[in-house]
């Protein structure tokens, strides 16, 4: 199983309500995924030329201020630090590769969850309600957010096996379904230089998209290619800097419902996760077609 939820705001006046609306959606999908939950939230961009990195410490009591200070000295700035439970979001004026190198050197015990101008990824094992509590999701503000509740089938219940998976700068993927050719594809991607950390099938789908994008594909091209190269069942939601995309496999066994009003586009595995959204009674509600790429983007 697994549950997917996504909320993309067209009306920026709703940004304050985003966390509250999203928390309700995520918790509603507990029946579909009680093992772990996570989300990628977009917004709160740093100044031009800066990047945000979201990092996770698996123990307790990390000295985030010290790390922030060291990163600031490395990039000659006052680094911006925001701590959320065992996660921190740090912004500095740096390129992604430099930032990764600096973190590997200064803080080898941390896991990098995402890098980008806008994205922040948080995920942990446990019921969705506990994840909402832990990261104070109801207080979050942003432009869009996608989340996932996991019922593990293909690999162990771990934080690394939880969704979303980062697929590159400001990109992430969540998946409901199971892939049957992930082992061979993982080996192929690893030979092509894509880092894949777990035995999880969805991480392979994320790695596949990352590889396609590195080859110069647009996101839409990469998703069309995925229809041919990924064997199995999937509904994907892909978060991008400006919006999100949805793709279902050609057999379309895994559910998805979309709703659109003048204020937002929302996506969920089941309608009940959308039922509490404002104006849902008059929203256009429909089921995305199989093998069709749907995208919403602020830039378009």
């Amino acid at each position, binding site marked *: 199983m697994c549950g997917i939820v996504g909320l993309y705001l067209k009306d920026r006046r709703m940004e304050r309500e985003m966390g509250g609306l999203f928390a309700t959606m995520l918790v509603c999908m507990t029946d579909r995924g009680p093992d772990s939950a996570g989300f990628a939230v977009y917004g709160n961009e740093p100044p031009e030329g800066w990047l945000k990195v979201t990092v996770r410490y698996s123990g307790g009591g990390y000295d985030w201020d010290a790390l922030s200070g060291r990163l600031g000295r490395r990039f000659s700035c006052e680094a911006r630090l925001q701590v959320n439970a065992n996660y921190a979001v740090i912004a500095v004026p740096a390129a992604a590769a430099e930032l990764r190198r600096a973190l590997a050197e200064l803080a080898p015990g941390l896991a990098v969850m995402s890098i980008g101008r806008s994205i922040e990824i948080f995920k942990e094992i446990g019921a969705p309600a506990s994840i909402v509590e832990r990261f104070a999701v109801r207080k979050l503000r942003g432009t869009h957010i996608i989340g996932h509740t996991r019922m593990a089938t293909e690999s162990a219940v771990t934080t690394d096996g939880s969704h979303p998976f980062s697929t590159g700068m400001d990109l992430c993927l969540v998946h409901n379904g199971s892939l049957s050719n992930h082992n061979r594809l993982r080996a192929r991607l690893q030979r092509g230089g894509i880092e894949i950390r777990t035995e999880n099938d969805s991480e392979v789908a994320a790695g596949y998209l990352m590889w396609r994008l590195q080859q110069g594909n647009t996101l839409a091209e990469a998703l069309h290619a995925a229809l041919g190269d990924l064997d199995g069942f999937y509904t994907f939601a892909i978060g991008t800097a400006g919006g999100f995309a949805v793709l279902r496999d050609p057999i379309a066994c895994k559910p998805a419902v979309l709703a659109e009003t003048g204020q937002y586009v929302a996506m969920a595995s089941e309608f*009940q996760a959308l039922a509490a959204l404002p104006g849902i009674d008059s929203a256009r509600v*429909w089921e995305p077609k199989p093998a069709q790429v749907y995208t919403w983007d602020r830039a378009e």
Partner: protein
Amino acid sequence: MTRAAAAATAATVFDLAAGTLRELNQRLHDLTPETARVPWRILHPRGAHAVAAGVDAAVCIAIEGHVGYYCAGMNQHAEITIHGMAGVGVAENMMSGLVRVQGSASQCAGATGHGGLLVIEGDASSRCGISMKGIDIVVHGSVGHMSCFMGQAGALVVCGDADDGLGDSLYEAEVYVRGRAHGLGADCEEQPMEAAHRERLGELLERAAVPGARAARFRRYGSTRRLYHFHVDHADQY
């Protein structure tokens, strides 16, 4: 006061925002021929699953909003109207009665139904009428891929288009499509529309209240009956 308004005021109202689904379904299961005369209104379904599943009484039920999976499943005798969209498997395994969806329906609408009529006023997604065993299904809009897969009896009427794999491994269910069938499944072929078919189709269109639909504009699809029994020459088609 109009008749509709009189019926509405006389109805038993159950609000799913206040009561539980189990309570609702238990009360519907407890109906007797006498108590079933009072119509029901179900408010705030909010996408809940299995709303009004397993009803076995000639009662009129109006569900005022979108429903989740298996709404009106196993229905026997009841007339159930969904004023919204239906999730997976609406009216699955229906035995008799009438289920009307005023919006669109997700996949497997009317799956394995033995009898009764399912009307979908919007579109139906994939696998509509999969393994149908006597139910009649009328879709005002279009249906998704693999509709009427292994259909054994009953009629699937599609007023719009049908996606790929229509009527795959079909037995004796009848399929009527007014728009375009994008691809027929194994063992499904277009067959001549004869007077008896037109009559049956006309009657279904009337019962389903499809605006402006004329039986003469539909094409009929049925089974070639080549895959009923295993034959090695057809091994590639199974």
